[in-house]
């Protein structure tokens, strides 16, 4: 067991974890942060995407011990005082989710995309989200949401 100290969605946690524990399992099983989903075993689907020190990572590809001393933001940490993050609002406004399973990861990846490139073209959005799979939407309305969020000047 290894002791780690991680700030998740603004709260500091200190826990003993097995060195093999994936960050996504730590978030879901230890912290109850079940907003972050697991959709595959091969880091293809991106459902588990969170921000580690502000940059998107697939939390199935990060060990919990690697997050020691760092800050993690999950989809559950985005809305502030009941106010949706502009990307969450954009996903709602544009019908960018159906079953909602890929949505947390998709939102986190989309925010990171705009952090890197505040005014992406449609092609840049599509390429930028290539690491996140959605089976419901055909991606069209997800692209629209990112365009809306980019247009709002906030990301």
């Amino acid at each position, binding site marked *: 067991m290894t002791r780690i100290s991680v700030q998740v969605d603004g709260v500091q946690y200190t826990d003993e974890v097995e060195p093999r524990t994936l960050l996504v399992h730590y978030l879901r099983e230890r912290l109850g942060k*079940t907003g972050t989903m697991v*959709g595959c*075993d091969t880091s293809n689907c991106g459902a588990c995407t969170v921000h580690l020190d502000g940059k998107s990572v697939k939390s199935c590809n990060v060990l919990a011990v690697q997050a020691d001393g760092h800050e993690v933001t999950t*989809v559950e940490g985005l809305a502030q005082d009941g106010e949706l993050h502009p990307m*969450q609002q954009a996903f709602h*406004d544009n019908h960018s989710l*159906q079953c909602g399973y890929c949505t*947390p990861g998709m939102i986190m990846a989309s925010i990171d995309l705009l952090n890197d490139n505040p005014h992406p073209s449609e092609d840049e959005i599509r390429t930028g989200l290539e690491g996140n799979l959605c089976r419901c939407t055909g991606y069209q309305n997800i692209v629209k949401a990112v365009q*809306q969020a980019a247009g709002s000047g906030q990301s």
Partner: protein
Amino acid sequence: MTTIDDRPAEGTHEIGASRTRKEDRHLITGHGTFVDNMVLPGMVHLAILRSPMAHAKITSIDVDEAKTYPGVVGVFTGADFADTQGDLPCAWPVTPDMVNPGAPSLAVEQVNFAGDAVAVVAARSAAEAADALEAIEVEYDQLPPVLDLEAALADGAPLVHPNTTSNKCYTWVFDSAEAGSGGSMDEARRDAEVTVTRRFLQQRLSPSFMEPRSTLVQPVGEAVTIWSATQIPHILRTMLALTLGIPEHKVRAVAPDVGGGFGGKITITPEEVITTLVARRLGKPAKYTETRSETMEAAHHGRGQIQDITITAKRDGTITGLDVHLTADLGAYLRLITPGIPLLGAFMYPGIYKFPAYHMSCDGVFTTKVPTDAYRGAGRPEATFAVERIMDELAAELDMDPLELRRKNWIGHEEFPFTTVAGLTYDTGNYEAATDKAVELVGWDELRQEQARRRESKDPVQLGLGVSTFTEMCGIAPSRVLGSLSFGSGGWENASVRMLPTGKVEVVTGISPHGQGHETGFSQIVADRLGIPFDDIEIIHGDTQVSPKGLDTYGSRSLSVGGIAVVKAVDKVIAKARRVAAHLLEANEDDLEFEGGSFSVKGAPGSSVSMPEIAFAVFVAHNLPDGMEPSLDSEAAYDPVNFSFPHGTHLCAVEVDTETGQVKLVKYGCVDDVGTPINPMLIDGQVHGGLAQGIAQALFEEVVYDDAGNLVTGSFVDYTLPTAADLPSFLTDRTVTPSTDNPLGVKGVGEAGTIASTPAIVNAVVDALRPFGVQDIAMPCTPERVWRAIQSSGENTQGAADESTQAHFDTTEGDA
């Protein structure tokens, strides 16, 4: 930037408004209720050991060491449950002599596909359960795999199941002359001026819902509650009870948030049964969540058919007959509706065309592969693919424009209702209007000019144009029709409406959504009909304890069957309220008008009473008509009078790089007619997602087994779902030809995009390469296959033709 004002303007209707969804808030903030998110006190986690062999006798299993692993609470094999697990149900014996060899959830003596469940570990954590799997020792005595469908049917083929005499499960036949719905196919063949025969291959696909299947079972005395990632909680309840011998009233099934289904969650799974067995044996809540690799190797696949199809016609392009023979890969076992899936397409091969004669036969075949069952469209994508591909082949044979050939043979809008050669009566449609609009939408004529220019200049990147003019049968289904097909259930749907004292409304539906947006759409319907604000309506579903009756969600039935049940229940509430209103207004019921949620006396606008006022009056029950029961609440069950027949025209353009074989979808436009739109935004969402899946069959996805029956495409690394970068933005539009078979005029939309799009894409790829002598390319049209097709064509200058690249399950795929 687009902003959407989703609120209908004052005085307008909810129906037809692009309301944003009620369902979204908890999902976008990370508060989904997916089964794997649930934890119960004392809960154990399960992990399942699966067969690494496609076909083998189990000679021994040693679980002793696994039992000593940290955290392990129990280890069980098929032998432990042999007397109690029963057989997984198959609800569709398609012929009286259909062979069902049985389907144990945990293999007892023999495994029949790589991934068959062999043992299960229960442990305090998921990681500990997975660790202990590695300590289980299983000895197998290998049997020959049964993979090729035609070889499986040959005399002397090794048998998948030792208790059968053949790998054939059934042969099902439809003949229009025998059915009295059309002429003789033999005569059509004899008299044909033109005959075109093709073999098309429907590769196996994985439904690939994003949420892996997950089940949590809590035993409570002799009762159980099962939460499952399922599309069919009601059917699960009944079938679990029958399978395990638990009295039905002791089973509660709950489908909380479900992360997509696409047909992949319409079955009773071995994992649901195993989880129930273990939970009951241990007397503890037990949860099983599969890994994605397990989804690929053990959750059912879709498609998997060889289609031999012949079309006959006159020289002028008038079609005279259609003959289809299917060889359907059922896999190792019959799941809930495995044998019926090809037959859901059997009535749709004639599509939108006026074939005078039709013959169809289907052989269902057991193989040592994952069972097949429903995947979005279920039989109808296969049918639509075959007829839309063969229409293009016929057009090429006749040197006719593919659209012209279709126009010559489709049912004219003035000919509805029209009874087809397969015996279905299409209520309404307007194929001309949808096609004209689609031609305009994509700029078809300009695309043809661009194609000609590239052909002329021998551009290495050729343009291909694809057509699919489709209809489908959905809205499953009239119970009598299901009965005539020996289906083990009806096709009705149930709804009830509860009026609360404060004027709010609860609507309980028997359908079970998993992403479609039914809470929003149904709220719009109820709001308009009952005159209650959209936000004051709650749609309740997915728990057999609160929604005790229903037949769930599949076959694009939720709106056209479930939605109509809601309408019927609402109408009963209004009828009861009318009686109360008449009493309160001291008027005759016949003199009352109901408008905008209020009853008023005709000609006396000053006097009115609103639905919330009536609800409260009924709640207190101080002043009701004599003898009236103090309740407005109402329930309705609705059995549809007919299937629903949405249709549309899908047109696309692909660029084919003739040097590399790369296919790029550059334009996709579709005009769908789904009857009266309830929520255009939700319709577009269904179409977009459906298109992506249909396009994926044409270009990207394929389940592949190697020669030993091992699954090669066992993860998302190898099974290639399209990403955002693989797809363009789609152009969508609608025509509206309301259904005459239901009071809302609606038709199903959930499967349309998937059903229509696959042939449009393949037609486009073949169209690009017709000058090269290419007549077909097996799906998915990967760069390698396209390149090989070009190399093996008449235009090839580099070597001999390679037959295997055209229309075969492909001998090359094992090399990938």
